[in-house]
């Protein structure tokens, strides 16, 4: 039977078929759906980890304990997990282990466009690059075999299009792979220098052996048609190249890309007149091909940023123009994403945005949208957890200047706080900066689509677990000044900001109200009584058309330009009441049930 599924779903299916027993991940676009789908297979123990580093470390443990294991993450997640990744590559596996990296050419939802193929090379692991969903599944199954045969973790590099495009997949059956016995082996699993030196030699030898595999495996293949143009490509670039050149070119399609198949590349180069290297991001293949002494066109012709779409290829090779339709370009306005109606971040950022003399250091989550209009209340975003430590450094410097000293307010979500924000807060407390850290606790990992986290009380399979309470945690870390507030109450937000700005030592504000999209837990319903059950409306008689309510940036508030009156979309409003609190004439009122 044929199934039309995404690359992420295919990886999940592949994990099941390969006999995987343990999988861990931290959510991150475009990799999130991998673990979400894996968790639907009861044979695989699945876990949301607090961050990518702990996810990979638990996978290392699971592999050593004898179970085929998998960690999935977005490209920047592998930066977080890089430390264990490099050493895991040295020590190798007991049962097979695979790391999935989901890169983002084009940066649809990421802070950078790094090319994680470089990690395979730097860490010395085998690597696959699937181009469609069938390959995602098949390569993953194969990767476990490689991992066990060559005693190394294997990296699978996907990209957004591969993760999120659907194509047809034929399913296989699950292979029953029993748990391998754990054997105490200090020389293998303790990476002290004396053990690690021979480990490196072993890895290099294993990679050398894999060159033979790379030259003969089915994942690297020639397709010889017209030989005037020869294209060397990997990942989705193969699909784009086929689309543009069809049978008017020959292809060397590379699916196993570390180590690369030198002999195959040399042979292919002899069969074709001119070589194009098509790859997204870095000249990873190109540098290797050039090092073999083969002339080619690569990044001299094709861009090293964005996606290598058929349009981009046509433009580079044929100079094809896609003239901009000026008439359309003039009228089309942007539709930036906004905080949802009822989003608990709205009230807080509405107030914070009004403060003068503060610098707001931000983090990664829905609240990053507060850097845009109408709040303009976030001034830095670097990586997960950076808000607090970056803010700490900035505050330390501000405190040394003469005259008016800006105050730094760091904002971070609950999931991001658990991810790496805890370490950052330790820095601020230990080094005594008067930083104001705000933990925006909306009781869920919202940005990536409502995943559970250590604070929610549920595991990925919605089994009940310990819900880590942020306030006691923060107090235990030595913060004396802590307040937990309801961010929908603007007076409370205002008063608490005044209080915090008056402090001369580390201060923490926790805003606690659930995400409007969250499936509420029984304890949420108990704590946040009546949340999202009410609707407000605008009394047009009273409304003076001042548009203060639209400045809250709520998508439920619609200004009727013809009538010069505001209105509220009853299908969207969930009753947070922020607009009603800012209305100067009380025109926004609660609808009676």
């Amino acid at each position, binding site marked *: 039977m*044929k199934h*039309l599924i995404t690359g992420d779903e295919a990886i999940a299916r592949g994990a099941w078929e390969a006999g995987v027993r343990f999988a861990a991940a931290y959510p991150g*676009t*475009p990799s999130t759906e991998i673990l979400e789908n894996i968790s639907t297979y009861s044979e695989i123990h699945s876990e949301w980890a607090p961050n990518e580093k702990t996810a990979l470390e638990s996978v290392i443990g699971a592999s050593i304990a004898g179970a085929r294991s998998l960690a999935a993450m977005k490209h920047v997640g592998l930066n977080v997990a890089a430390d264990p990744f490099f050493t895991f590559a040295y020590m190798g596996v007991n049962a097979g282990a695979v790391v999935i990296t989901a890169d983002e050419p084009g940066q*649809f*939802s990421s802070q950078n466009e790094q090319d994680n193929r470089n990690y395979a090379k730097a860490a010395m692991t085998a690597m696959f690059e699937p181009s*469609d969903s069938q390959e995602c599944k098949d390569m993953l199954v194969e990767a476990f075999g490689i991992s066990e045969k060559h005693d190394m973790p294997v990296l699978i590099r996907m990209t957004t*299009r591969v993760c*999120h*495009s*659907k*194509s*047809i997949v034929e399913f296989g059956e699950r292979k029953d792979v029993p748990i391998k016995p754990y054997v105490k082996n200090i020389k293998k699993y303790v990476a002290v220098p004396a053990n690690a030196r021979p480990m490196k030699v072993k890895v290099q030898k294993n990679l050398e052996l894999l060159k033979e595999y790379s030259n003969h495996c089915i994942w690297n293949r020639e397709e010889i048609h017209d030989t005037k143009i020869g294209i060397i490509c990997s990942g*989705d670039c193969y*699909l*784009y190249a*086929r*689309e543009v050149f069809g049978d008017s070119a020959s292809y060397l399609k590379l699916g196993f890309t570390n180590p690369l198949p030198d002999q195959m590349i040399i042979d292919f180069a002899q069969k074709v007149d001119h070589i194009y290297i098509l790859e997204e991001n870095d000249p990873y293949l190109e540098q290797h091909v050039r090092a073999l002494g083969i002339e080619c066109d690569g990044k001299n012709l094709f861009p090293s940023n964005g996606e290598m*779409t*058929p*349009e981009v290829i046509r433009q580079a090779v044929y100079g094809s123009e*896609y003239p*901009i*339709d000026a*008439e*359309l370009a003039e*009228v*089309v*306005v*942007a*539709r*930036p*994403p*906004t*905080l*949802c109606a009822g989003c608990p971040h709205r009230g807080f950022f509405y107030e914070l945005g009004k403060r003068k003399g503060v610098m707001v250091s931000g983090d990664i989550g*829905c609240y990053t*949208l507060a850097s845009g*209009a*109408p709040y303009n209340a976030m001034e830095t975003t670097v990586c997960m957890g950076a808000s607090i430590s970056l803010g700490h450094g900035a505050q330390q410097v501000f405190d040394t200047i003469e005259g008016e000293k800006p105050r730094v307010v760091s904002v971070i979500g609950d999931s991001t706080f658990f991810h790496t924000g805890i370490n950052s807060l330790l820095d601020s407390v230990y080094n005594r900066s008067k930083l104001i850290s705000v933990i925006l606790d909306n009781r869920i990992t919202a940005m990536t*689509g409502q995943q559970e986290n250590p604070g929610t009380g549920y595991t990925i399979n919605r089994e009940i677990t310990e819900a880590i309470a942020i306030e006691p945690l923060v107090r235990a870390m030595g913060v004396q000044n802590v307040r937990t507030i309801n961010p929908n109450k603007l007076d409370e937000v205002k008063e608490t900001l005044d209080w915090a700005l008056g402090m001369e030592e580390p201060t923490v504000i926790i805003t606690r109200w659930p995400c409007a*999209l969250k499936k509420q837990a029984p304890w949420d319903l108990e704590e946040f009584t009546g949340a999202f059950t009410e609707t407000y409306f605008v009394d047009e008689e009273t409304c003076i058309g001042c*548009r203060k309510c*639209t*400045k809250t*940036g709520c*998508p439920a*508030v*619609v*200004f009727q*330009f013809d009538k010069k009156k505001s209105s509220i979309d009853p299908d969207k409003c969930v009753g947070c009441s922020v607009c009603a609190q800012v209305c100067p004439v009380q025109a926004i009122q609660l609808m009676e049930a």
Partner: protein
Amino acid sequence: MSIKNILLTGIGGQGTILASKLLTLGLIDAGYDVKMSEVHGMSQREGPVLTHVRYGEKVFSPIVEKRKADIIMGFEELEVLRNLDYLRDDGKGIVIFNRVRVNPMGVQMGKEKYPTNGEVLIRERAGKLIALDGQAEARELGNPKVMNIILLGVLIKQLGLEDFDWNRIIAENVKEKFVALNQQALQLGIGFE
């Protein structure tokens, strides 16, 4: 056959994803090779959603190229305009368009203007334009949410795929209590002219 290129565009919550899912399931049943690509990272936050669907004997790329879309089906006017440069420019492109306007934040704040001449611009560029008030049609059926399935019906008619067993596909993929309503909505769309 040559490959058909279709774009479905709208904003989060309008049901583009279900509509494209049903379409592709029908296409697979009929034995086509199908590829589909979605950009929907911000769809829950009032952001745009764009779905590419390509089908034929053998499809490589999952994305439609500019000026190559045979049909653009838009659930919202501005989103049609945003993606109109995907439409083939040989006068054979079809636009199916739901007469709905949702103000983006810039318009809401009074800093930008929602295009006033959208339908004219679409008409000038499309070989064929089918405009309908999908929400009103859906409301008449009893639930404004089936707007997406009405539009899907219109699309299916334009693709000449109305003979597939869509009733079964709906029955297998929609919650039981909504099956009949969705089947009705699809027929309404197929019959729309």
